[in-house]
């Protein structure tokens, strides 16, 4: 998943509006210069994006504001306020936030250790390759792996019991908030390492030397130079990790069945069998998810635009 790094690359994102300025006043002037070949080249992409990304999503947004016979209503949105749905949003937000914050923090520390900690080069490339694999090792098999590790018969549980510590009697349960968070970290930490590594590479060696020459301690370097430079990337990646965890369902579903009622699992059950007994409420639930993930991504975009403005 090395390509994800380009998500954090300021030159690749949707906010780099540089080229558009060159066109001048009318951004649609290119239409008059279109040739048949150009249309054939771009048409499949546009049609695909409309039919399989934009319209289905917009359909859900519209559906959230419609009652059974298609009239406008706010009732579905109001109905989101039931204790069951609010609880599922709350646990989803908590799991996503915890796994994003821990994933970003731990990922940052590991990335700093392998890039700036004077470890052998071979370790760095091994960690980067492994991160590519682990960030893609999500879904059903990840749940199986953690059941085999921290489940009631898992290796770690058995070994701990062998040395006299009963993990499950101490209150731990894999099928819980912390169990799910620890499992999510398995793809969150590597994703963080992949995205933040190029930014850490961007911290020039000269800056550290200059700071040291001026008498700065290592701590002061990070407090006044390192972290402020990395800050936009950190916050951006944090919201990306949040969205990543918020939309994930397969791992949680295979791990907990429906015992942990996170929003995607509730929505899954709703699509399957209308457990909320109101089709419009399903669309409202989907709208809630879209709003939260879109919000996380907008934070990311806004932070990055501001960071770029400062860099100029």
């Amino acid at each position, binding site marked *: 998943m090395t390509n994800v790094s380009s*998500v954090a690359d300021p030159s690749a994102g949707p906010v780099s509006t540089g080229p*558009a300025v060159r066109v001048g006043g009318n951004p649609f002037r290119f239409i008059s210069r279109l040739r048949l070949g150009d249309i054939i080249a771009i048409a499949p992409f546009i049609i695909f994006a409309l039919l*399989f990304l934009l319209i289905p999503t917009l359909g859900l947004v519209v559906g959230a504001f419609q009652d059974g016979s298609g009239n406008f209503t706010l009732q579905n949105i109001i109905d989101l306020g039931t204790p069951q749905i609010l609880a599922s949003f709350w646990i989803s937000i908590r799991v996503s936030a915890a796994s994003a914050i821990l994933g970003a923090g731990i990922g940052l520390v590991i990335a700093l250790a*392998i890039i700036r900690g004077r470890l052998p080069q071979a370790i760095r490339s091994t960690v980067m390759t492994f991160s590519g694999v682990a960030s893609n090792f999500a879904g059903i098999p990840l749940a199986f792996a953690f059941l085999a590790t921290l489940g009631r018969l898992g290796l770690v549980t058995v070994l701990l019991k062998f040395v006299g510590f009963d993990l499950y009697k101490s209150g731990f349960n894999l099928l819980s908030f912390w169990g799910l968070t620890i499992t999510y970290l398995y793809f969150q930490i590597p994703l963080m390492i992949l995205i933040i590594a190029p930014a850490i590479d961007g911290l020039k060696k000269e800056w550290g030397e200059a700071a040291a020459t001026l008498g700065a301690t290592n701590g002061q370097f990070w407090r006044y130079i390192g972290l402020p430079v990395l800050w936009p990337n950190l916050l951006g990646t944090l919201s990306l990790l949040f969205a990543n965890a918020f939309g994930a369902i*397969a791992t949680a579903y295979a791990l907990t069945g429906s015992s942990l009622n996170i929003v995607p699992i509730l929505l899954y059950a709703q699509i399957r069998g209308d457990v909320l007994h109101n089709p419009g409420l399903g*669309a409202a639930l989907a709208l809630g998810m879209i709003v939260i993930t879109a919000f996380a991504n907008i934070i990311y975009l806004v932070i990055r635009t501001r960071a770029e403005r400062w860099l100029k």
Partner: protein
Amino acid sequence: MKSGRLWSWIIFGLGAGYFLLPLLATFEFSLRIRREGYTFDAYTSVFSDGRFQASFSYSLIIGICAIIVGLLIVVPAAYYVRLRAPHLRPIIEFITLLPLIIPAIILVFGYIRMYNTSSPLPLLGTNVGTDILLTLAYVALALPYMYRAVDTGLRTIDVQTLTEAANILGANQATIIVQVIFPNIIVAVLSGAFLTLAIVIGEFTIASLLNRQVFGVYMQNVGANRAFEPAALAVISFVITWGAMGMIQLLARFAPKTARRD
């Protein structure tokens, strides 16, 4: 500064522990199926299961179809944007990022409402239609990675000069894309393809809600009904993911050869 290095090793060691322990534990668990000792019987049981073979080959076929369709959509668009419409780039890139913003479950929910049997385009009414919808859903999932891979490939070659040279020699636009551009970015395209395969092969949410028996859905079924086979399946999936990523790393070594410009 000596202590800094020690800390690096400690952090690396703790990280390695967290990431390797589940792999070790899963492997160990998968060998525990017989009381008398470690055996590979869980793997034998998985591989000889007809549903494993059926679901795995079905996932593979859908994955390959998604790669082909994805390339047909992405390569001409990325080429066109790079060569003739750089001002469209922010819009196109934003669209390719949408699948990262919209969770898969939202996407499939949208499809189910839009392509049901009473809609103008009732793809879900037939088996073939549902297969097509699943393929296109996977194209959407892979779009961010596929577009980026192709675009990175295009960045390393001189699209403008190659196109002009081919034009002078009398090639039309389709010929240019198929015979000039595509061979030059084949390494980038292949890494996009392997990434797509790694994502698609274990996918659960979309296929499950479209009622398709893919590998991910099979794994979920086994997980709900068996004890040791799921661990074996997890090991198998990890090896597959590792294989796909390994292929990308291997391909990256060949990339500079195509990228060289004199």
